[in-house]
């Protein structure tokens, strides 16, 4: 079939390193001109060309009509640049793309909303900005209002809206766009969970109507469930293009930002955290099996290893962990007195010891976690408390109904055993 989007060798170069002077001043230009007129002539408009960066490079791909393509990659990988080029907000530096349909872009919800105008007025204004015709807005007006659930606030200026109401109205307008090609940036990252679900439902409805969608997201579950195909961008280049499931799992295993540190090590017993009785040597988090740097998902069993020097003979020590969620709530507490091992509940000689805590899958909820390490003596006195720098992300990788994605409320997310039976008839 003929593709609806054909992109060849798209590239976008930006000038960088001029953050503090984002725009020229006449004086600067005049000074430049007086000082080095030949230099300006020589390099033309491309002066300061050494301070450039290719935000997007050699992007070549085709999209079939009706395809929903996820675009994934780290921050700064060029995802937004690609969307901006495809939605004609900015020109590419190289290459060419042909679009065989009307394009609408949704890089932000509520673009052009004016705070002084009422909800009703903003529906028209925003609709027009997104490329709708007046008649089109009029005919969809009631649907938009119904979707937003803001009937009674229609004549209130939007500056009096709560941020949730604002988002609802904005998305209601945006979701009634009917272009052949829809370009969407991380717009689902806003709003409350209930509303996100509604938006996602609407997105999938759009997808099933045969609309072509290009969708940037950091939410891998959303990408997997909404998209048939995914492009993985890294440093401006497409490094993988294929079925969404494959690309997402490759991305998750190789493309993760190293922004969490899975290990803390102190080699010098003199300076390691601790005191006269005990000093820490190493703290590490790793999956139960596989390589230590592999991502942790809600399904992955993983271990926390604590290595420490015991400096007093015949000490009855044990380790207690407080696992914190990113909300700084203790998800649970666990101690090394449970379980079995040579020194579980037995006095230790002087030396280096390692305690390992096995944390099963299906326990922690999605999100970033950290922990506190306590070294306890004789079951009651704590010898030393260490707030560990080690953090780890629990990712959501379950394949589920698209209408429920993302983080569920709750400190933990255990999979529990349920059973349902019929116990009577009417």
């Amino acid at each position, binding site marked *: *079939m*003929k593709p*609806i989007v054909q*992109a060849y060798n*798209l590239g976008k170069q*930006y000038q960088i390193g001029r953050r503090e002077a*984002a*725009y*020229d*001043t006449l004086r600067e*230009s005049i000074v430049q001109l007086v000082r080095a007129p030949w230099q300006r002539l020589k390099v033309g408009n491309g002066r300061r060309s050494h301070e450039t960066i290719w935000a997007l490079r050699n992007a070549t791909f085709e999209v079939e*009509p*009706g395809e929903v393509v996820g675009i994934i990659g780290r921050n700064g990988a060029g995802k937004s640049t690609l969307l901006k*080029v*495809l939605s*004609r907000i*900015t*020109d*590419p*530096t*190289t*290459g*060419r*793309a*042909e*679009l*065989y*349909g009307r*394009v609408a*872009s949704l*890089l*932000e919800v509520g*673009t*052009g909303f004016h705070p*002084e*105008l009422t909800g009703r007025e903003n529906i*028209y*204004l925003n609709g*027009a*900005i997104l*490329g*709708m015709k*007046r008649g089109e807005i009029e005919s969809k007006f009631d*649907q938009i209002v119904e979707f937003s659930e803001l009937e009674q606030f229609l004549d209130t200026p939007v500056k009096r809206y709560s941020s949730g109401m604002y988002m609802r109205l904005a998305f209601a307008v945006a979701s009634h766009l009917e272009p*052949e090609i829809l370009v969407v940036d991380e717009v689902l990252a806003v709003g409350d969970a*209930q509303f996100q*679900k509604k938006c996602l*439902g*609407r997105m*999938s*409805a759009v997808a*099933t*109507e*045969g609309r072509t969608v290009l969708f940037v997201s950091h939410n891998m579950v959303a990408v997997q469930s909404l998209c048939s195909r995914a492009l993985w961008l890294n440093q401006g280049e497409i490094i993988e293009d294929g079925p969404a499931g494959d690309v997402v799992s490759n991305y998750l295993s190789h493309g993760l930002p190293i922004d969490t540190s899975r290990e803390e090590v102190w080699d010098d017993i003199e300076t390691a955290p601790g005191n006269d009785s005990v000093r820490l040597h190493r703290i590490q988090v790793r999956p139960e099996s596989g390589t230590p740097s592999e991502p942790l998902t809600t399904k992955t069993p993983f271990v926390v290893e604590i290595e420490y020097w015991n400096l007093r003979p015949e000490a009855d020590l044990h380790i207690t962990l407080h696992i914190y969620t990113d909300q700084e709530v203790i998800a649970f507490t666990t101690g090394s007195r449970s379980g079995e091992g040579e020194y579980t509940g037995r006095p230790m000689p002087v030396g280096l010891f390692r305690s390992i805590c096995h944390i099963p899958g299906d326990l922690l909820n999605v999100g970033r976690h950290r922990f506190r390490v306590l070294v306890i003596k004789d079951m009651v006195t704590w010898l030393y408390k260490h707030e560990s720098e080690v953090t780890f992300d629990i990712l959501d990788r379950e394949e589920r*109904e*698209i*209408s*429920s994605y993302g983080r*569920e*409320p709750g400190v933990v997310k255990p999979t529990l055993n349920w059973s349902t039976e019929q116990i009577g008839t009417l």
Partner: protein
Amino acid sequence: MGNSGIDTHESLTSQTQPTSERKQVRATAPTLHLPEKPLVIIQPNNDWGGIDLRDLWAFRDLLYFLTWRDVKVRYKQTALGILWAILQPLLTMLVFTLFFGRLAGVPSDNIPYPLFAYAGLLAWTFFSNAITSSGNSLVGSAHLITKVYFPRIIIPSASVAAGLVDLAIAFVILVLLMVYYRVMVTWQIVMLPVVVLLTTLLALGMGMWLSGLNVKYRDVRFALPFLIQLWMFVSPVIYPTSFLPEKVRWFLLLNPMTGIIEGYRSSLFGLPFNWTALTVSAVLTLTLLFYAAYSFRRMEKSFADIV
């Protein structure tokens, strides 16, 4: 939680169309008719090329809504509201009448000075407000430019168009003044729309050029009020061209506003037209407009990157 999500999803699809119908759409969708030629071609900026009129036409509703927004928002939270559109030229006229008409005795081509000054100020207020607001319009719309595509020229155009609404309101006072001074309208009034159009095009040309320049050189914002003030004194707003010595009159012709402001007075008060001045104005206006469109088009592509 998961369950409630499914509920929402289902109520949602049924809201748009029945599920069975939707499935049908899905089945037929892949045979979607694609046009032979691409609707949009994205490629690096080719420097030459005028404004894409077809594209502009497709977005005409946006021009309407942005104009309407500008008008609507301009006088929000002001006690006097749209009255400001009248007060500005009216009060200026009163002050000028006192100082230039009475005290300095500036001649006014046998028209009562207040009327003479008001007609000039009407045109001038429209022109200066239009270029000020359109000159700053692109920078003020950075949030739109970086987030959504539409022909950028719509932004300065909407600012100029919003000024037209004020002009229309200010005209009401002019009519009242003309009734008061018993000045009769002649057939020459048919030229009024032409003169208004010329003012609009000149303001559009200036506004377009300045707004584009302003994105790159924020100096424009500071230079503009100053420029407008100077410009007013070399335009026959508060004095007639005949007030100046013959030798320097030709110099005033270089200012496109000369022919335009005189054109307002001629068409309104039945004074003889200065066709030379009007033709020069028209030529200068159109030249400026084409240059502005060309330079705007050249600058347009980098707006999103530098605004």
